[in-house]
């Protein structure tokens, strides 16, 4: 899954490094907070990075006489926490790119996004969900399988977009020559059929061993987290939502067929909308475009926003663990 150099355009590489910058910042800040409680986390980051290196290097037998290797993203997230795993895996990828020639130097951001963010966080999310439903092993197995496949899917999309993003005037691709129709199935089939199962079995067995031998060495999710920043963010976004009323035109890519036909005609591309869109599935929402019949658009917009916030708050309230006792 390590994307080498020259497979992604410099623009894609740059964008993905920029996208990774806030993730790394939050990781460092979270790990610093984690270090205050568990001092060993600091050296553990480096040691976990070398452990991840060895996991990626170790070939596992698969039926048919060949071998494959695990990545260990979900496993590390469960063992040392997702943010620490993100940092440790990023360091492993940097080492591999700079010292061992595995994975590109420019493509470091893309590889970090796939293997150090998507894989551990998807895996850890599933594991936590399984824990809440009292089936942590099932959650971990699903997380390991989904984590690696989600990462493979994103890697396939990154590669498959290149012929569309960077090509010569004659249409010849400048970087990865395979489009989405080849890159995504190629990446996904290999991971859905082989690598995903290898990752699942490997993660589950190592987790079982550690849990049996030293359960206290597993990452303990903080019981109480400071939710104030998240609440402030949500309230801030809710307050800012009426800004959407200032926009007069339809957002890019959200056109209906009439608008699209008009735009295509303006650009001298076509005089009719694509057939797939014209004859495709059309869902009539209850409050289409946040408008309520008989009310001004602005009132409908605000009422829709308030309704959505209320529904989500009720959902969150309903899913919370109750503290009341039953007699």
């Amino acid at each position, binding site marked *: 899954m390590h994307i080498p150099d020259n497979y992604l355009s410099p623009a894609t590489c740059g964008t993905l490094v920029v996208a990774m910058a806030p993730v790394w910042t939050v990781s460092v800040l979270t790990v610093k907070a984690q270090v205050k409680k568990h001092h060993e986390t600091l050296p553990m980051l480096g040691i976990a990075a070398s452990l991840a290196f060895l996991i990626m*290097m170790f070939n596992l037998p698969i039926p048919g006489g060949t071998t494959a290797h695990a990545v260990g993203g979900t496993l590390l997230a469960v063992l040392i926490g997702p943010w620490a795993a993100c940092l440790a895996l990023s360091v492993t990828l940097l080492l591999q790119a700079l010292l061992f020639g595995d994975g590109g130097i420019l493509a470091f951001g893309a590889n970090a996004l796939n293997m150090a963010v998507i894989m551990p966080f998807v895996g850890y999310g599933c594991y936590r969900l399984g824990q809440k439903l009292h089936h942590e092993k099932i959650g971990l197995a699903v997380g390991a399988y989904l984590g690696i496949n989600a990462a493979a899917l994103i890697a396939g999309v990154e590669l498959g977009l290149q012929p569309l993003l960077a090509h010569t005037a004659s249409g010849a691709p400048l970087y990865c020559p395979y489009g989405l129709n080849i890159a995504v199935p190629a990446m996904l089939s290999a991971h859905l059929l082989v690598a995903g199962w290898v990752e699942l079995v490997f993660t589950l*067995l*190592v987790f079982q061993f*550690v849990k049996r031998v030293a359960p206290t*060495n597993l990452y303990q999710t903080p019981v109480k987290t400071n939710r104030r920043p998240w609440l402030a963010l949500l309230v801030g976004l809710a307050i800012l939502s009426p800004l959407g009323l200032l926009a007069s035109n339809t957002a890019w890519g959200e056109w209906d067929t009439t608008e699209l036909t008009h735009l295509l005609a303006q650009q001298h591309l076509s005089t009719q909308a694509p057939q797939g869109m014209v004859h495709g599935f059309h869902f009539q929402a209850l409050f289409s475009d946040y408008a309520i019949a008989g009310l001004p658009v602005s009132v409908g917009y605000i009422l829709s926003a308030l309704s959505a916030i209320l529904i989500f708050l009720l959902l969150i309230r309903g899913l919370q663990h109750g503290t009341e006792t039953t007699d």
Partner: protein
Amino acid sequence: MEPKQPTNLPAWLQAPASTTSHATRVTFWQRNQRHLRALLRRLAQPAPAIQPRWHLAPQINLIRLLLLVLLIALIQNAVLLWCLALLLGFQLLWLPPGQLRRFVRSWLFSSVVAVIIVLPSYWLNGPATLLFFSLKTSLMLANAQYYRLTTPFQDLLSGLKSLHFPDVLIMTLAIAVTYLRMLGQHLLLTMEALETRTVAPTKHPYRLIGAMFGNLYLKSYAYALELYAAMEARGFNGHYVRSTPTHSHWRDYLSLSPDLLVLILFVLWRP
């Protein structure tokens, strides 16, 4: 005086030993052990980094590598790429013959692997795209390989520090490389012990691997506790001290000039 008993060897010892060598299948254990030994050899005795005539500051070396890789990725002009290849070729002239052979071997291997992946695109886009892509990828790999060959790990850390990378990252990198060797050694010994004690093929190799890596994680945890205790004992305060002065000299900036010239040509030249 002659001995009464003949000193002939027993018949079973006189019979020629059957030394038929069966072409045994290399098991995944052996393959992993081979890979691990190669890694440990490389970490234990890293090839001495060649000191070029002009010893450049580590951060300049790192910037130079990034600039070159970026330029090669951006440039679609064959002449400019040729210039960059010539530049690298001149640098390679300074390498001792043994190191040069090592460079070529490693570079060819990685280039072949990279080209094999894009080989089927010949039927999609024709030979021109494939050839251009292969040449660019090979040139990038050659530059990265040259950097690896001429830069010791300590210089990489100093370079990152000079470029204001966070201390946590640099310390993590330093610990990772140090403990990669220790954990690798532990893994290899475990595998050798398992192989020595196993008399029949393992029924569930995955269970064994799970136990092995679980054990390795617990070992890592123990190492982390010991390491933190040692760090505290030595007055660790969370800051990574710069070991060598890394001030850039005018020669460092001069060394960037050919790459910058190509960059200017890339921006201004429209053939």
